[in-house]
């Protein structure tokens, strides 16, 4: 077997590629060729390492040195100085804030303070090489499940682990499986929901791009547990790199005999197909997703019957989110006890957040459930950019709400967040400072929902539109005193009457911002002022209706 003295891992997540990672890799390879050391250096395109803001990233082993913001022009220096002479390039290394100190990979707070279960392989292995996944205990859990365990044992371990659905609702995974397992049906289906649609959220994409086999293995374990032989991965067409990596992974798994008939000499057979979503947010809702796979219009169905009883093609179907599935092999391999040592009693394990907005190091972070927002924003994310102050964080995207400063020490778990009027959601975490207008933020997410509402039920189709009209009125300085009451009344009604989760959660950002930032709404309505200076009222002051058409937001 070939020995490489240097392993150079280039982050090849979609963000880093967009930031110019592609050009760097080519330049690096050219330099290696020029100096005739291609045979000594193993260049690996790996998945997202998390610190997306500093990308493209390059990690060099065995030293474990991380280079940030590498460009094609840096390749020459890295090869000539570091690879040939062993002198790391300080200019490009991760620096301690404001100091000439260079912590090793394990001492950088952004990485050191995370706990990685779901992202255990992201940024460490080549996602297009099944051998590297196998080296990191890949498919070991699957083998254990199908050779040594009965389906019911698998369900019991997952129940015992307390794993809850990471798509947002937090329903206990093992319990969900048992519904489908108890159904007597020849055909059952296992679906992976990779239709990640929340603005600002990209946890699932990073897992698919960085460690696709972990999702495939999770699906197979779930399929074995419920008695399904066929799986579908429903992935957004907007994630071309994730699709490509999944296709490669499925192909390699089939070649290795890990997908197909009589896996590892057992009676268990399983096959996976990819289905591409056409960009409708509602198709992340499980019944709309099922309709979409069946080739029908992506509209939600009435529940009950729940998919576990009658789902895809009328057969018992389990739909799990990408992150949920990526947890499974660790739970089966290391046991429920191992998993439960992380997180809280009712929300065990970890959660991946996509940290975005007004924060120093935005990117992907995985922390134990119950970690405080303060720790995520300040200890891991490096705080708010200089001169600004934290105002609030939005969790759960268009279905969630805000956490204001006074609750920054709240543990992030499935119990504490709903108590504040928000939700865990899939993991989007948008940080806001005093330059963010809360009314404008609420309007942004409501606008998103209005665009994405499928139109099947009246409360969601009409209700959200009327709410948006009121918000547009408020943010252009024409708000009326009764508007806040109207928004609250309508929001509560939509929550009670909408058909699916999209509508039921759509008013959350509005209701939550009213709850914590009512004075900002009042400033817009009564003082005709936007405290953050985002909403513009100037045209109104100058002459009322005549100029209204020119008002821009």
């Amino acid at each position, binding site marked *: 077997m070939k*020995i490489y003295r240097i392993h150079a891992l280039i982050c090849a997540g979609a963000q880093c590629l967009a930031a110019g990672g592609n050009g760097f890799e080519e330049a690096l390879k050219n330099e290696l060729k020029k100096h005739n050391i291609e045979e000594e250096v193993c260049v690996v395109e790996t998945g997202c390492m998390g610190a997306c803001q500093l990308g493209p990233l390059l990690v060099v082993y065995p030293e474990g040195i991380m280079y940030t913001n590498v460009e094609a022009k840096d390749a020459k220096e890295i090869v000539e100085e570091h690879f040939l002479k062993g002198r790391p390039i300080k200019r490009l290394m991760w620096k301690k804030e404001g100091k000439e100190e260079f912590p090793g990979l394990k001492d950088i707070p952004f990485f050191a303070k995370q706990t990685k279960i779901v992202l255990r392989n992201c940024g460490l*292995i080549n996602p297009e090489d099944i051998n590297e996944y196998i*080296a990191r205990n890949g498919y070991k859990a699957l083998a254990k499940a199908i050779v040594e365990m009965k389906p019911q044992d698998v369900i019991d371990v997952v129940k015992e682990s307390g794993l809850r659905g990471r798509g947002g609702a937090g329903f206990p995974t093992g319990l969900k499986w048992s519904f489908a397992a108890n159904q007597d049906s020849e055909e059952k289906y296992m679906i992976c929901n990779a239709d990640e649609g929340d603005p600002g959220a990209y946890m699932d994409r990073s897992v698919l791009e960085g460690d696709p086999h972990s999702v495939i293995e999770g699906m197979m374990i779930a399929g074995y547990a419920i008695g399904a032989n066929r799986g579908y991965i429903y992935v957004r067409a907007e994630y071309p790199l994730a699709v490509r990596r999944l296709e490669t992974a499925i192909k390699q798994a089939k070649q290795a005999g890990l997908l197909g008939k009589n896996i590892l000499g057992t009676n268990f057979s399983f096959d996976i197909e990819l289905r591409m979503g056409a960009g409708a947010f509602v198709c992340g809702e499980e019944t709309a997703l099922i309709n979409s796979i069946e080739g029908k219009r992506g509209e939600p169905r009435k529940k009950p019957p729940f998919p576990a009883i009658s789902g895809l093609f009328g057969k018992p179907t389990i739909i799990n989110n990408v992150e949920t599935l990526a947890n499974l092999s660790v739970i089966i391999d290391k046991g429920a006890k191992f998993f439960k040592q992380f997180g809280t009693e009712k929300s065990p394990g970890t959660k991946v957040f996509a940290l975005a907005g007004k924060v120093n190091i935005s990117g992907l972070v995985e922390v134990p459930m119950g970690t405080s927002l303060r720790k995520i924003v300040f200890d891991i994310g490096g705080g708010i950019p200089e001169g600004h102050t934290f105002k609030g964080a939005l969790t759960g995207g268009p279905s969630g709400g805000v956490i204001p400063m006074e609750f920054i020490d709240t543990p992030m778990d499935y119990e504490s967040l709903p108590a504040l009027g928000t939700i865990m959601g899939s993991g989007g975490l948008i940080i806001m400072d005093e330059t963010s207008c809360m009314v404008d933020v609420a309007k942004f997410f409501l606008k998103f929902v209005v665009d994405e509402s499928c139109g099947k039920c009246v409360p969601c189709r009409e209700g959200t539109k009327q709410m948006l009209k009121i918000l547009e009125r408020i943010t252009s300085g024409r708000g009326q005193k009764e508007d806040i009451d109207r928004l609250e009344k309508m929001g509560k009604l939509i929550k009670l009457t909408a058909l699916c989760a999209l509508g039921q959660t759509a008013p959350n950002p509005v209701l939550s911002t009213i709850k914590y930032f009512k004075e900002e709404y009042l400033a817009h309505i009564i003082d005709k002022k936007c405290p953050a200076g985002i909403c513009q009222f100037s045209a109104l002051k100058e002459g009322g209706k005549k100029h209204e058409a020119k008002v821009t937001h």
Partner: protein
Amino acid sequence: MEKIKSIEELRKLREHARESLKVRSGETKVKIMVSMGTVGIAAGARDTLMAIISELEKREYHDAQIVERGSLGLDREEPVVAVERDKKTVFYGKVTPEVAREIVAQHVINGQIVSEWVIAKE
């Protein structure tokens, strides 16, 4: 790639695949440090380095990492190679490719220090 037909075959493949990823954990049994200062390179440190890699490859030994570093100041003894194993570091001087192969075979893999070429111990 060939089909994996049993849990045993999967285990074997895992053990094998794990070897080549050892470097990325930074936790290898042996650390080989080659001085790559100007004098070292002039004295043939590149050839020494290549000999180390090829000997490791020949003997299929993956539990070692190779680190390049600057000159230690001992120009007279270049190329200088240090081997860290069992918490002890041994410095070798005037390491030609032939000596390097011997060091890999004796010290790196089997823990037998090649006393003939030792210049210092830590």
